[in-house]
């Protein structure tokens, strides 16, 4: 919703100010007051898309696209359920992007999360990735990848996650936010 623009009357030096002009000015001041109370503002393009259904991630250097299923915040319609593993930028600008992959089991081996732009090929399409290697990690460990990046309208982001434990591993669910991606426009 965009903020309505009040029309402020103008006054000319030497011209008598009439009641209607003063009433109009008072009316617009009242409108501005009400707008501030009502919190009218242009909504910032933002998406926080969560995964509530656990996903099994295969082992290996090739990651899997994270399948998201629930929109917590989705102004600007950047995510649709029919294309669950993609965020589509609708308004060009510079965005903060953060992917959080929460692992549902304790396992040894490397794990990583990454975000690609305009394609899913790694490493060519990476704009953010976070690999690390752990042994004996407890359940609930997370992989986080983040960046601040400029995007065109229509640019597509893909959340990816992978691990090298030697067998398939599940992601974790149950909390308000588990595995999720957050995308927020910071500026033009």
């Amino acid at each position, binding site marked *: 919703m965009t903020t309505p623009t009040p029309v402020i009357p103008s006054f000319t030096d030497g011209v008598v100010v009439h009641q209607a002009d003063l009433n109009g000015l008072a009316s617009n001041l009242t409108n501005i007051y009400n707008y501030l109370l009502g919190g009218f503002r242009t909504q910032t393009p933002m998406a926080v898309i969560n995964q509530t259904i656990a996903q099994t991630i*295969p082992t290996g250097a*090739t*990651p*899997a*696209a994270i*399948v998201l299923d629930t929109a917590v915040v989705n102004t600007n319609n950047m995510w649709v359920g029919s294309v669950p*593993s993609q965020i*589509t*930028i609708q308004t*060009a600008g510079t965005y903060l992007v953060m992917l959080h992959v929460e692992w549902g089991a304790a396992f040894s081996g490397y794990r990583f999360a990454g975000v*690609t*732009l*305009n*394609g*899913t*090929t*790694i490493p*060519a*399409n*990476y*704009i953010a990735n976070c690999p690390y290697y752990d042994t004996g990690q407890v359940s609930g460990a997370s992989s986080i990848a983040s960046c601040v*990046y*400029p*995007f*065109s*309208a*229509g*640019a*597509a982001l893909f959340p*990816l996650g992978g691990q090298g434990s030697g067998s398939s591993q599940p992601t974790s669910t149950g909390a308000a936010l588990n595995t999720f991606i957050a995308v927020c426009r910071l500026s033009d």
Partner: protein
Amino acid sequence: MGMTTMVTLRYEGAPSCVDCQRIGVPMCTHVGFHPEAWHVAGQGVHVAGLDDRYEHVLRSAEISPDRKTVTLVVDTVRPHGTDLARQLSWRPGPKAYIRAVHHDTGDTIEDGRYDFLLQEGQTVYHGNTQYVVHTVEHPARDPVTGVADGPDVQVATLKPMQTDTVRPTT
């Protein structure tokens, strides 16, 4: 860059005006197209047969010596839109590989790299030809992981938009 259309208008009325007819003059130059009325080059015009979704600007008007025919040269301005033939990028970072394919013939319209992926239902241009994106596919992606091993090409099938730019016959 737009399109240019030649439009011919013909005067189909009586060969002489009513005043000349009254005094028995069979043919006069009071009827037909007058040059004074056609000094409108550079103005936007509407002409029957030209698609009114576009802006049409009169470039020139040529009147025949008998004033019975005027030929208009009209430039049609294409509205702002994504032109797949112009692979211009103003953002850094990885580009989308898009192969645009004609829906009817299967021919490749364009192979290019862009700052965005195409979405179904989106209107795009290739030069002066307007298309709608019918379907998009990513054949290189593994069906299990959803990730491509190699270039992740988006194959977009484009259907040409139907526009009526033919002047109906009278």
